[in-house]
């Protein structure tokens, strides 16, 4: 059964005008008929629901009753349907791990003493 989105029983919650702005930002699009605009808005709502529920279901955030960024980027990487999002939802690594990676590359390149790494808790985007 079709699920009406929006807590207020409206057929679609996302504003058609804004959806239209995004659609028209594509240079090759000339015009959009009203039905197509409505369907795109509605499809976007279904997409948001699907992305959220899929990520929650398959992610680790639910161990703490949460939906996290990591759940989403995991979905983009693992699930083929959502792979088009991989570039905008990159995985994050801890700064400490990144530094270790750099150190290792350096060590592989030349002979030298390995340094002790300091633990940092900041996340860094790839």
């Amino acid at each position: 059964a079709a699920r009406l989105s929006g807590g207020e029983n409206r057929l679609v919650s996302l504003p058609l005008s804004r959806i239209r702005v995004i659609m028209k930002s594509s240079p090759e699009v000339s015009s959009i008929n009203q039905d197509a605009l409505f369907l795109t808005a509605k499809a976007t709502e279904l997409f948001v629901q699907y992305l959220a529920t899929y990520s929650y279901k398959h992610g680790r955030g639910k161990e703490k009753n949460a939906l996290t960024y990591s759940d989403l980027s995991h979905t983009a990487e693992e699930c083929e349907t959502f792979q088009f999002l991989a570039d905008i939802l990159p995985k994050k690594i801890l700064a400490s791990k990144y530094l270790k990676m750099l150190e290792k590359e350096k060590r592989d390149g030349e002979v030298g003493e390995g340094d002790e790494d300091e633990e940092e808790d900041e996340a860094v985007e790839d």
Partner: protein
Amino acid sequence: MAERPEDLNLPNAVITRIIKEALPDGVNISKEARSAISRAASVFVLYATSCANNFAMKGKRKTLNAGDVLSAMEEMEFQRFIAPLKESLEVYRREQKGKKEARKDKDKKADSEEQDKSREEENDDDDERMEEEEQNDEEEVDN
């Protein structure tokens, strides 16, 4: 924050509500996650539009129509959306038709009052409206 002339973002409040209603009660959504989903939604619109436009071009049309969007969903592997989208579209079309009729009735009423007559030829008017509805697919949206 500077505002760009064309905002390609979707309203945060609406996105948040859609997410909350989809997830079980009480689940926390980090601001980062919410923001990421919003961006993903914008990308989805762009991707769907591009895909739908390809179908329109294949059909040698310059106007994206409902069929193009549905074909795009299939192409993008969101077949699960197609049935609910078709149902919603029917409701939407009925709503739009209802609004149109309401406007016409209003105009008609104004005319009648001017001419000081009451009209009862509603059947003829229904036929007129049906014909105009079929032309809807070619109408362009201009905001």
